[in-house]
């Protein structure tokens, strides 16, 4: 069957994974925990890498892995309902089988440029998903990194994902601050109100840190502007991209931005690398 029986597995052939746990984060975001049918992780990965999820006959789609590589027993994917594959996935139950292949792409440089540094995570909406794999990785190797600031915003409090982490787990860790914001005033919300880019400026953060960003393109655009105004350099800023990906292995030719393939050379890019590329994302 799924051809792990011989050495020459084609990279396009998925293997089976079972949905072990489903958590509804928001009205349109669900976090799926998947494992091998015989138990255990489908594959090992690095923070920021992606997995191609298959739901025949609907098709395939690429998602960032939201669980930390330090999580030994399963992979987690937080998936927003926005297309035909995600719609189908949202209809699945615990015990359903899907296809999975990966890991794909590069990763945030947790063992190089990030090590020993103060870190600033900036996320909007579902954009927290890829960053969560990094944050949890760092939390598990807390001594290797400096101070951690997490700025996370969503349209409404209901749209905040990974609530357990942002409200309970992370704020209670050493030298870790979580700053939450929502777009508009809302009953029952006594936290900060406003857009992420503005909040960043208000927080008056020092610039001696590495920044990791993920969120909707418009948020990223304004955050980058804001960061440069505060005095951050391009070499300090990392983000992660999502484009149409089919093969995941740098061959099918559709996720390129200039001469870079997001699925292979990305999805993580440093801002100075991005600025060398055409504005086509």
């Amino acid at each position, binding site marked *: *069957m*799924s*051809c792990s029986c011989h050495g*020459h*597995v*084609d*990279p*396009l*052939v*998925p*293997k*089976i994974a079972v949905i072990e746990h489903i958590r509804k984060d928001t009205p349109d975001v669900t976090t799926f925990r998947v494992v091998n049918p015989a138990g255990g992780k489908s594959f090992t990965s690095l923070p920021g890498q992606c997995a191609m999820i*298959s739901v*025949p*006959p*609907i*098709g*395939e*789609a690429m998602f960032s892995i939201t669980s930390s590589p330090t999580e030994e027993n399963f992979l987690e994917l937080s998936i927003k309902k*926005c*297309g*035909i*594959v*995600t719609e189908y996935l949202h209809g699945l*139950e615990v*015990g*359903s*089988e*899907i*296809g999975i292949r990966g890991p794909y792409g590069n990763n945030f440089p947790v063992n190089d440029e990030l090590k020993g540094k103060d870190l600033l995570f900036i996320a909007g909406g579902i954009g927290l998903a890829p960053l969560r794999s990094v944050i949890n990785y760092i939390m598990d190797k807390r001594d290797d990194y400096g101070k951690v600031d997490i700025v996370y915003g969503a349209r409404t409090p209901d749209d905040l994902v990974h609530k357990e982490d942002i409200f309970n787990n992370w704020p209670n860790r050493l030298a870790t601050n979580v700053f939450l914001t929502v777009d508009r005033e809302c009953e029952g919300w006594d936290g900060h109100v406003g857009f992420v880019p503005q909040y960043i400026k208000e927080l008056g953060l020092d610039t001696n840190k590495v920044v990791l960003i993920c969120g909707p393109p418009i948020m990223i655009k304004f955050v980058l502007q804001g960061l440069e105004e505060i005095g951050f350099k391009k070499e300090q800023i990392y983000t992660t991209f*999502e*484009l*149409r990906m*089919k*093969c995941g*292995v*740098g*061959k*099918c*030719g*559709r*996720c*390129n*931005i*200039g*001469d870079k393939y997001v699925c292979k050379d990305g999805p993580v890019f440093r801002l100075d690398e991005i600025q*060398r*590329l*055409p504005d*086509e*994302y």
Partner: protein
Amino acid sequence: MKVLKKEKFPQIWQAINQAYELYLPIEKDDRVNFAQWTEGETVNLEALKTEISPKDVIFPQSETYLKFESDGKKLQLESVESENREYVLFGVRSCDAVSFNLIDNVFLREPIDRLYEKRRNKGTIVSLACSEPEENCFCSSFQIKPEEASPGVDVAAWDLGDKILWKPVTEKGQVLTQKFAQLMEDASQQDQEELIKLQNAIKEKVKELPLASVDPKVIKGELKEIFESKVWDELSQSCLGCGACTYICPTCHCYDIQDFAGGNCGERFRCWDSCMFSEFTLMAHGNPRTTQKQRFRQRFMHKLVYYPNNHGSYACVGCGRCIEKCPVNMNIVKVIKRLGGEG
């Protein structure tokens, strides 16, 4: 070096076909294309280039690689192994032979595309030098030498009138030659001399071609500079947004993956796709290339800038098919010249 008399062609086709699948330029309805040979087909080795490049033989337009069955909960996946035998692809021109190497650069780099690799390994490629290059040929712009055996071919052949000169260049080529040696003779001193004459004649003809002076190196500057050139607005206006250029092109290799299902089970296949099509980059939440200008630019940037950045050579072999087939006569030569500042 061997010699194969043309009168022996029917015999050798039959003989090769016993041991291999045999692909040849075959004429049908006045048009010549590579196809699997069967008894009775009209082989045309005179036509310089086939309408569509032979890339279909190494990279089929559609290829099923997975079967699935799902009841909504349980999923079964089975990879589909290709059933192809070893094959001989006979009569490949230098430009097309080089295009195979360009596709190899992408499909055979890590992680290796196993479907492609398997198919590629099963092939023995026999090239045929271009005795009569055509007006729209410009392979010399990419340092391709149509008078020589192109890198990667297993046997090189030259047309000497009533016979072809046959030179095995790889081990696979040796094996093929040995298998059918009884149909060939050893090349004589005179044959060798004729070959040199022919090669010199081809070289002269190539120099005289109207597009001989086309030089992609006129495209200078940083990636972003070329990307932002005003020339794209002007060039792309006439593009109809069809994929004719892409599909006849020997170097275009982008593909799509689709599922086909009936009831609970189905197949997953990959198939050629074109960056010229509007939904090529469409995602659930948007499309980074919404205009034909962006799509047009992508195709030529890929061939002339992106691919060279990644692999060290241009992704064009100057076969001239796009010059012949574009419904509105827009083609890579016009793009190179214009980007180089001409016109």
